[in-house]
């Protein structure tokens, strides 16, 4: 048996706040970072959508997170805050495809292109994010860029498909499909 028993496990039932949106926490984070009291847990996108997970921080703090169902863990969330430590959730960047429209296409072509691109991505069950006129969706490897270039080959005069590595946060409502 390889069972490891950690007697110092800390139960977490809710997120304290987020350093990106709470200025008080951000200040606290800066102070504690300077004095080397900040720890982090690394969270993938799929893990970020979970309400229950056990994670060990980079400094060995053992955290058992069990929140209300439907809760998410976002980048910058403060998971634990004591006088001695602040534990922050850090999202791991992932491979994505980035589709952008080429500049010189007509309104009619934009409509057709947008619908076909949306249809193709939806057919592959991918969540999407749209920012600055670019469509992002997760891929596992570079070879999937070739796949999407093939699937969208009749639109290749209208669009560019490239790979990128980013913290991908899906548009809400476009992460999973419900009926």
């Amino acid at each position: 048996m390889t069972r490891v028993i950690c007697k110092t496990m800390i139960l977490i039932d809710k997120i304290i706040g987020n350093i990106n949106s709470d200025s008080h926490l951000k200040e606290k984070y800066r102070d504690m970072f300077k004095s080397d009291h900040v720890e982090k847990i690394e969270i993938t996108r799929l893990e970020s959508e979970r309400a229950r997970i056990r994670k060990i921080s980079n400094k060995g703090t053992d955290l058992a997170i069990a929140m209300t169902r439907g809760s998410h863990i976002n980048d910058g969330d403060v998971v634990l805050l004591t006088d001695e430590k602040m534990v922050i959730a850090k999202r791991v960047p992932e491979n994505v495809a980035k589709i952008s429209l080429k500049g010189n296409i007509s309104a009619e072509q934009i409509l057709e292109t947008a619908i076909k691109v949306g249809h193709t991505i939806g057919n592959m069950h991918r969540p999407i994010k749209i920012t600055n006129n670019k469509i992002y969706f997760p891929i596992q490897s570079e070879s999937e860029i070739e796949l999407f270039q093939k699937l969208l080959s009749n639109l290749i005069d209208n669009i560019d498909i490239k790979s990128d590595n980013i913290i991908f946060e899906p548009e809400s409502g476009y992460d999973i499909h419900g009926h």
Partner: protein
Amino acid sequence: MSSNRIPRVGIGGPVGSGKTMLIEQIVPILSAKGYKAGIISNDVVSKEDADRMRQNLATEKGLVPEELVIGVATGGCPHTAVREDPSINLSVVEEMESKYNYLDLILIESGGDNITTTFSPALADYFIYIIDVTGGDKYPRKRGLGIENCDLLLINKIDIAPYVGADLKIMERDAKIVRNKKPTVFVNSKTGQGVDIVVSYIIRDLLFEASPKTLVNN
């Protein structure tokens, strides 16, 4: 709401990889430790797996009440019933949670599917993916959502590895590379070899080492 939620394990893997047999091995070990499990088994058109588990674990061994082994016939692509649209499974899980609050965990078996199976985080809190050696030792490095993203990867049928020319060392090495340090366990779900390790991961990473509810309450 959080008080009546029961931790859920999703078990996915290709057809014939050993999902049902794994559950038949896991439940007696959990049961001996006092943990009570409900079981939901997805199949495409039949309820064959659920019927078999009910016969084995409920009727013959008496480890689980018969009504706590539930078959779900998904129709179409079974992965969609646990990944994109888990609503059928969610309704069964939620009914189990409200009726049988004494359960320590719920095991959800996906219908046999391809390597892109994952469980929606809305459905499962912990994801086990099981493959076997018959696909050859190239299997882990070929990647796939299930292999890469699962919390625990199981490589089953290690007893026949020599006969199909699968090198377990290669599988272990490649699994480590594609899974970014997440654990992989070799099992033989026919004999139960390695299954105690699987159970210890479930108790540690899903149940957070909590004592069985019925023991605490008595």
